[in-house]
């Protein structure tokens, strides 16, 4: 690494000012805990319902009044679901799609964002606006034209169609651009003086500094792809290509649904997200604090 200039901007350390241990106000802290605890219960209640429903028979899921603890625990739901649907195939497809789309979105998004945030050229803002403008159109409106393009390209009923569709969205570009704006231009200038090309500046200065944003972009893209239902539903017909969300919907029939199975599957499908979330947390919370700049 050739970058030896000390950055003009202050070295970045975690921003947690009101929490200096010596200054902690016990009452305020207690209040914060109380608030958070109440809230945590509130946010976890539907999840608890989901887990409880996953251990019931279909007919007992929507009992009125709600039965929080199942009368009998049907643990076999968690084994039966593997026989009812090819869950392993669905999970593998979901993992493949989510990882590929996330990786591409993060790479191309952060790359394009540098162009929007740190390079000035005519038409830049108009182009950026076009990006945002497309987010403003609901997918319900352009679903059919998009499908026709894909059909013409012969990509319908392949994973590639979904990858192409979702990997180049405007969301990542927008998010990363906003984050890059907070990185002082002086850092880039210093890189330039050191003889780095713009690509070098992106790779060696800007990218390492934007780990928190990259991590949150990756997390949110992953979750959104993982939970996407309409995209896979429209584009994937072959059962072997289905994702977990399609698998779960296959328990919804013409007139009724097997809700216990749906909830069992939902619980299982949350687990990978949870793992990713727990792993990713350290990036968007501690972020650049530990590595920072040399």
């Amino acid at each position: 690494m050739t970058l030896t200039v000390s950055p003009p901007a202050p070295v970045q350390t975690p921003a947690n000012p009101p929490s200096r241990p010596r200054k902690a106000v016990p009452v305020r802290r207690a209040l914060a805990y109380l608030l958070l605890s109440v809230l945590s219960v509130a946010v976890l209640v539907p999840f608890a319902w989901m887990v409880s429903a996953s251990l019931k028979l279909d007919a007992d899921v929507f009992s009125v009044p709600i039965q929080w603890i199942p009368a009998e625990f049907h643990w076999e739901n968690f084994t039966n679901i593997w026989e009812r649907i090819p869950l392993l195939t669905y999970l593998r497809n979901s993992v493949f799609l989510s990882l590929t789309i996330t990786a591409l979105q993060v790479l191309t998004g952060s790359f394009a964002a540098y162009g929007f945030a740190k390079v000035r050229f005519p038409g830049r803002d108009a182009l950026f606006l076009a990006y945002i403008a497309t987010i403003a159109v609901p997918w319900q409106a352009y679903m059919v034209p998009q499908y026709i393009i894909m059909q013409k390209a012969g990509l319908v009923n392949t994973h590639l169609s979904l990858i192409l569709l979702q990997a180049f969205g405007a969301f990542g570009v927008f998010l990363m651009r906003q984050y890059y704006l907070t990185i002082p231009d002086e850092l880039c200038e210093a890189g330039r003086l050191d003889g780095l090309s713009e690509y070098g500046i992106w790779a060696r200065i800007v990218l390492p500094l934007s780990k928190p944003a990259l991590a949150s972009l990756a997390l949110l893209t992953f979750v959104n792809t993982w939970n996407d239902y309409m995209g896979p539903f429209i584009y994937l017909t072959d059962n072997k290509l289905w994702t977990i969300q399609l698998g779960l919907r296959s328990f919804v029939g013409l007139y009724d649904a097997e809700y216990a199975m749906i909830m069992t599957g939902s619980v299982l499908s949350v687990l990978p997200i949870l793992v990713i979330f727990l792993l990713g947390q350290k990036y968007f919370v501690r972020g650049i604090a530990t590595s920072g700049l040399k």
Partner: protein
Amino acid sequence: MKRHLVPTLAAAAALALLTACGGSGSSDQPADGAQTIKVALWNYATTPEFKAIIDGFQQANPTIKVEPVDILADDYAEKVTTMLAGGDTTDVLTMKNVIDYSRFGTRGQLLPLTDEAKKLDPAKYSGLSAYDLEGKYFALPYRQDFWVLYYNKALLKQAGVEESKLQNLTWDGYATLAKSLTKGDGGTKVYGAYQHTWRSVVEATAAAQTGGDLLSGDYGFFKDQYSMTLDLQKNGTLMPWATASSQKVTYNTMFSTGKAVLMPMGTWYASTLLADTKSGKTKVEWGMAPLPQRASDGKVTTFGSPTAFAVNKNSKHSDAAKKFVEWASSEAGAMAVAKAGVTPALTSQQILDTYFALPGVPNGEVAKQAFKPDKVVLEMPVSDKSSDVDQILTEEHELIMTGEKSLDDGLAEMSKRVKSEVR
């Protein structure tokens, strides 16, 4: 540390690519020159009649191979619309309901089957006329569901009510009976009846039995049926509509766990009950009776809707596809459907005997009478206005049932909106 993220992501992508192998491409044409037709249908694994029809057809036509294109039931029509917009060539399309059918038919997306339809006897196919689009037919029905009254035998016996009492029930009789069957409180309450949240439970019943026209924009004929339902809801015989709707209560829960004694519902529910009894998911002893009537002249009028197969205009194997559609609605197809525990479009004594011979199907006079209604009226008339009217009626139904609008205001609003908003 700082550059780990990019390689990690790249590695993840590569890894994912590797795991992706397999799962593309479908079986090609068999070498012996046999044809393969694709049939768009829903929930193949849990809808037994599809497999029954496909197996039966392949046996009768060994040179044609049928490949199901499995689509989720939930948004079936939307997916088919999108596929066809893209020029999809799936040969046979299942028509989930007649409103969807009329949309595909009038857009010219289906192959005419008028000649084939003329060969069928309209007296035996009560659902056939629903597919008449200005003299042309684009689909043939293979299945016909209609509404009956389900009842819990054990609970009825407990209350000392004879099953034969349900044979000639009027709605007034139903209301009185349901009220007397209501017992208990809170979590252990048993409702005398359960009427699901759908508007058809009230509105299609009223239309069928009074001869009212659901598209007319004049809805005075709903009044008796609504008053009865609202009264039952008020005196606690029915679960409040608002609770049932917001808690997403399923009719299967209400009936099969013994929370309700009587339940008007379509014949499709019988196949669910048969399957659930077989797999041990429910132990409810159930029976079927004719739908209660408005008039007490002993005639049974109910409502229902048929399901049909149609041939895609873009099909590359249209002859084979037509063969499939014809077979499914034929006597042989109907037998296969009946054996799967589902009510076929074709009615004949032989079919009825086949159905009632299935293990678990309630026998006896009441059930058999339930399966021989004098008249089955189409649940919703087919027209280009149907879905707009349906939307308005659904919205106003919610307001009447939640008590946000009085019955008279609600009915007046329905008429007003249908007349002004539907062109």
